[in-house]
């Protein structure tokens, strides 16, 4: 128990001292995951809108596919991507294996189904009158879609935060296709895995603290933006 307390204090000191290695790892994590979420969000929400508002054959099947994709473990995504990107794989010529780009691709694949499923749920339960009102007031189909999306923005924000939480903490895919290269593809989760396997816990705890703080901040943010929503029991 004492060990853990000591290690935690040391971890805090490590963070506060501005240790270059640790902060570089943190920055890799954020760069990769922010890029992945930025790329994934718009197409995922567009997809969710189409699934919620347009009838086409196979719609239910596509929804089921995305819900199933939620359950795919990060290592499986990593493995598949590894096979595709490795030198002998179909995309080997792109030389993407063990790069940040490969990590971003992996994280997009992990974030996408979660974004679609959660956005779909909130668009599905959105008020149909919002869409009808937009259309009858002269909005084009595209503007009406944007209007509906704005109306359910809290739900969509929750989806984006959940997806970001998933990818910034995933270790399986980043480890396999990133390769855990220091100052390049070593991010928070892969660094924690490595340090722990070496038996040096301080850096691992320090990075774990960063993840926890991030989760806390994101949830405070989410609560704050929803703060205006009605409270039923005052």
């Amino acid at each position, binding site marked *: 128990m004492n060990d853990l307390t000591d290690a935690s204090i040391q971890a805090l000191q490590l963070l506060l001292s501005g240790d270059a290695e640790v902060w570089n790892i943190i920055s890799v994590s954020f760069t990769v995951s922010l890029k992945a979420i930025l790329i994934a969000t718009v197409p995922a929400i567009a997809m969710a809108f189409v699934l919620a508002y347009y009838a086409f054959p196979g719609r239910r099947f596509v929804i089921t596919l995305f819900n199933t994709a939620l359950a795919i473990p990060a290592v499986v995504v990593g493995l598949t991507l590894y096979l595709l990107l490795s030198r002998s794989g179909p995309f080997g010529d792109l030389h993407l294996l063990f790069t940040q780009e490969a990590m971003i691709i992996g994280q997009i694949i992990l974030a996408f189904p979660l974004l679609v499923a959660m956005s779909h749920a909130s668009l599905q339960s959105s008020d149909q009158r919002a869409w*009808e*009102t937009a*259309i*009858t*007031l*002269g909005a084009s189909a595209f*503007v009406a879609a944007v209007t509906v999306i704005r*109306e359910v923005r809290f739900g969509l924000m929750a989806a984006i935060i959940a997806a970001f939480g998933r990818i910034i903490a995933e270790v399986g895919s980043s480890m396999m296709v990133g390769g855990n290269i220091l100052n390049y593809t070593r991010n928070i989760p892969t660094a924690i895995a490595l340090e722990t396997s070496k038996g040096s816990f301080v850096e691992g705890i320090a990075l774990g603290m960063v993840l926890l703080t991030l989760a806390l901040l994101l949830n405070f943010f989410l609560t704050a933006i929803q703060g205006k929503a009605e409270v039923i029991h005052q």
Partner: protein
Amino acid sequence: MTSLIKKASLSLNRVCFKRGIRTILDNVDFSVSQGELVLMTGQNGSGKSTLLKITAGLLKPQQAQVRFVPHDGQQGSYPWPRLKKLLRRKVCYLHQHPYLFHGSVYDNVAYGLKRQKMSKQEIEQRVVQALQEYSLESLIHRDCHELSGGEKQRVAIVRSWITRPEIILLDEPFSNMDKESRKKSYALIKQMCQQDIAIVLTSHDPLIGELSFDQHIHLYQGKMTHKSV
């Protein structure tokens, strides 16, 4: 009376609408001309809202023939995509329980104008003026979710009116309004008709005497009957 000769009109003929095996509308004919005021009555569930939504191009009927004068002389059975485009451009529907977008009264009333190419100043000027004419200017910066039921209905009416459609369909517009608001609404409706906007409104309250209707149509078991006014 030259105005009688070239009046614009919209007729929907042989409208059929089914939900599953239930027939909601059975060969309904209905037409409305520029500046007309039409009252639509019928029991709960008789299909009033359904017919209005079809007229606004928001709900696809199983069958309908539509004719616009003077837009096109001929009776058209256009394919639905084309028809709905035409209807949506000319007709504005207001829900029985109006939906107001998140944001202020100003944002809501300005919504339709922003869809038309119009400068910011012009939008602002029109919104303020429209709200003033309907004695709602004090609400302009209020958040729509704080408004009372009657206030919401009135804001929604201005929001439809300001886009200047040819036809406005008001589904139970007065249900939450007090005497004072109703009086102002009757005046606004008369004004809209004078601006050559056709108004179709549904109501369960007797409105005879308050407004003078050009037509009174009644829906009963999917069929439409015309009543004298």
